[in-house]
């Protein structure tokens, strides 16, 4: 089921008549059968968008299409969606089986059939042996699976997940996000999930939509968005450790950060914001980009250098991830070069990428 959002807008009005635009003219198409991550910092309107797709919130303007059906005014009970809430909203007084069967009973599925379907879906998400437990007797990860099973059991056209992993511990989070990916692949249901965790979104989404202040910033395959950001916000939001930002200047076709020469540029002379991914540095024999290493963190195969930034601000440091083979000690003075595809230039005023 392809989902199309046309100029979707949601304005919240407070009691004092103050207006907050939570979602501003959102115009995106979500391809059928894919797993889409709605990503952004808190308050960016991603959950609001999800709840408008579910029908629990009414859009102020714009329309929502499921395939060819305009569902903008269709109430949630008729949309055929499965929704997993942030804190799961499992009915505490019902067993796992009763929770999963609840949507089927609403659809008047015969009892035998409902029990069988509930068991099948519970097996799919890996909780088939917990059917007689109450939600309080389950761990967070198990509760989350029950919530997914309950959302999936009625074979929804669309599956919506609101911050599904935020209540899980780090280890469970890794495990469960792969589980979500697997379940989505096996069922082939168009799935939208909301998260503020870029790593989570990048790791399992077929596509991500990055939002800020109610406006979609960029949409695309995670690696593509990471590699070709359209603006400074996107570049900063994606990646751990985050992208390094410098003040730069183009003079006579050469890009400078302070007095370091970072190579040629076809852009006209101007001040720019320079973004360099931590993995975009190379330690070289000779370069005008000199750096003083403050600390060295070696984690597994990577070595992260925490480097004093001599070109812009004495107090600031930035990070460079280099090959673990490099023998660098704290206090060393090194020379760096920059991989061109890991360097981005942004307009100083608008933050838009300059090409």
């Amino acid at each position, binding site marked *: 089921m392809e989902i199309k959002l046309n100029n979707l807008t949601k304005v919240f009005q407070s009691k004092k008549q103050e207006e907050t635009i939570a979602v501003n003219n959102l115009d995106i198409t979500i391809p059928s059968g894919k797993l889409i991550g709605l990503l952004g910092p808190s308050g960016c309107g991603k959950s609001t968008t999800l709840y408008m797709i579910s029908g*629990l919130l009414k859009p102020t303007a714009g329309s929502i299409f499921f395939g060819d059906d305009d569902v903008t005014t269709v109430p949630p009970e008729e949309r055929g969606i499965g929704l997993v*809430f942030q804190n799961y909203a499992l009915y505490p*007084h019902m067993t796992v089986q009763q929770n999963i069967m609840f949507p089927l009973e609403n659809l008047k599925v015969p009892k035998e059939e409902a029990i069988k379907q509930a068991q099948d879906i519970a097996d799919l998400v890996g909780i088939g042996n917990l059917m007689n437990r109450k939600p309080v007797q389950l761990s967070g990860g198990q509760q989350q699976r029950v919530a997914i099973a309950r959302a999936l059991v009625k074979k929804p056209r669309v599956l919506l997940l609101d911050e599904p992993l935020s209540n899980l511990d780090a280890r469970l989070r890794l495990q469960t996000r792969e589980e979500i990916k697997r379940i989505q692949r096996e069922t082939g249901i168009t799935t939208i999930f909301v998260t503020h965790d870029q790593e989570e979104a990048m790791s399992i989404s077929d596509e991500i939509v990055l939002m800020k202040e109610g406006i979609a910033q960029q949409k695309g395959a995670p690696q593509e968005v990471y590699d070709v950001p359209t603006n400074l916000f996107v570049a900063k939001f994606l990646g751990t450790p985050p992208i390094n930002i410098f003040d730069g200047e183009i003079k006579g076709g050469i890009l400078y950060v302070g007095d370091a020469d970072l190579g040629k540029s076809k852009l006209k002379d101007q001040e720019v914001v320079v973004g360099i991914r931590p993995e975009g540095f190379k330690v070289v024999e000779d370069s005008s980009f000199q750096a003083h290493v403050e600390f060295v963190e070696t984690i597994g195969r990577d070595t992260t250098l925490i480097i004093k930034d001599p070109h812009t601000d004495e107090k600031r440091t930035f990070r460079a991830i280099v090959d673990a083979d490099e023998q660098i000690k704290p206090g060393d003075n090194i020379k760096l070069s920059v991989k061109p595809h890991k360097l981005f230039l942004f307009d100083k005023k608008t933050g838009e990428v300059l090409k």
Partner: protein
Amino acid sequence: MLEEKHNIKAWFYLAPALVLLIIFTFYPIFNAFFLVILKDFNYLQGTYQGFTLTENFVHVIRNQNFAQAMINTMLITFVSVPVSVVIALLVSVWLNAIVKLRGTFQTIFFLPYVTNAIAIGMAFAFLFNRDYGLINTAMGWIGLNPVNWVGLGATWRHAMFSLLVYVVWGGMAFKIMVFLSGLQSIDKQYYDAARVDSTKRSRIFRKITVPLLSPMIFYITITSFIGAFKAYTEVIGMFGQRLGPAGNDRALITVVALVYDALDRSGVPGALSEAAAASIILFSITLVFTLINMQVSKKRVHY
């Protein structure tokens, strides 16, 4: 050492309530069990003719009003409690659903709680008045003949009906307040989840609201049963000392009224023990029903 210190402090904090409870609750209960085994106890002279286990209870049961008192008390309890709990539940669900004027309606429904029971009783006696009562007037509009609800020579059945209406109405305020606060503490996400899963309203009420409210419903049911077994003020409020419509005196007598009747004769030897026996009978009935209630609800209450 530390533990002990805490203990002393705790007792100190408990003392004011404990002292009052001991004087006005525990001692009287203990005393009732003591009085009930005395034979022909004369409370003015402090004399008694030996001990007995059954005699005082026999006096109570042989009382010409005992059967009527039991019937009335049971009827008031088993009609008014379920009816008022169900109506209060529906009213609070409705109150919780509306947005406009919720505060106003909340106040209206809560008014009976802060109004004197005797005053409400008098107002109800007037509502049910044969000649100028609102009930008969309203019945007249739809072509029904006026009924002598509570007036001179009113039948037991009509008087009891009027009393039940009053008891149900008077007991609703507190129940609504408890249910409403219970409803407001239910996470709204359960309702969103139910909506997304296409749940019918009636099913949401039965399968989600009632179970999630069950601790409150249980608490209200238990306390209402206990309260209803002690029905007395309501009868006084509506019918006065006669405990029934004029010409049909004592028709609406209750078990608590038996206790007071016996106390009125406290100068007579054995009367005080009879009052104690009546109150112990009531205590036992209440205890048994509360235990049954707790047993029945064990599987239905979800904490």
